[in-house]
């Protein structure tokens, strides 16, 4: 109760930036990219919970609940795509994912 909400916001900003930099840095490993996405979603969740406490409104926590289910689904589908890709090309380099010629 006595923790100011801006501390939570600073923490979530820092985690968000770490996740974002992680996506850029780990171009060679798709698993770490997925983990960075999890970090970004986690920073959003910290914000939601902090504001739910700040406004004393339960809707923020409900939204975190939905956010958790969506991120679990995203992790499952992302890892399944990665397994399929590894079977095809025998690697999970981000630079090898160029079949669409994008």
């Amino acid at each position, binding site marked *: 109760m006595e923790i100011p909400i801006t501390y939570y916001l600073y923490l979530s900003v820092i*985690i968000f930036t770490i996740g974002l930099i992680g996506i850029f840095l780990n171009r060679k490993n798709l698993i770490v990219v*997925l983990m960075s996405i999890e970090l970004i979603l986690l920073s959003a969740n910290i914000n939601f919970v902090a504001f739910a406490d700040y406004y004393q409104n*339960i809707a923020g926590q409900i939204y975190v609940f939905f956010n958790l289910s969506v991120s679990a689904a995203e992790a*499952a589908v992302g890892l399944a795509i990665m397994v399929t890709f590894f079977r095809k090309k025998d690697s999970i380099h981000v630079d090898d994912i160029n079949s669409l010629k994008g």
Partner: protein
Amino acid sequence: MTIFLFFIVSIIIITSSLLVILSKNPIHSVLFLILVFFNTAILFLFSGAEFLAMILLIVYIGAVAVLFLFVIMMLDINTAKLRQSFLNYLPIGLFVGFVILLELLYVVSQSKLNFLSKNITENKITNEIFENTKIIGNVLYTDYFLLFQLSGIILLVAMIGAILLTLRKREGAKKQNIYKQILKK
């Protein structure tokens, strides 16, 4: 005292999330990700979100992180080869990251939020009669019922998609042929 604990937990979160993206071995990354999730659960407890803290432990650590571990152990990745051109994207990554970090820090530092003036609404997150889990249940199954079902459908679609993506035909796998079974000669 609480603020002291908050700083300790925050430092652990920031350090281990840095180690998630910097460690060479993906398994170490997953283990540090588990540490991040665990400490975030402690943060949720500070904010009075007991149910979400436990859900974070069960869903993230118990399901998602273990799924990551399984996939990493199955894939047999050559870690030395993976780090070859690590530094190619370092300048632009750091540039974009720091620009976003500075902007967000400026926005937060200029905000007019004051934690002393709390707007109390009717759906309080904790009170004397009900605990947090009961309040979430009361709201989730009434006001947000359609969204709850929608998240169930999302999970179902994700499950079907994951099974379908990783399905492959194999020789010698025993399978039931219903047409052949009920066909009358």
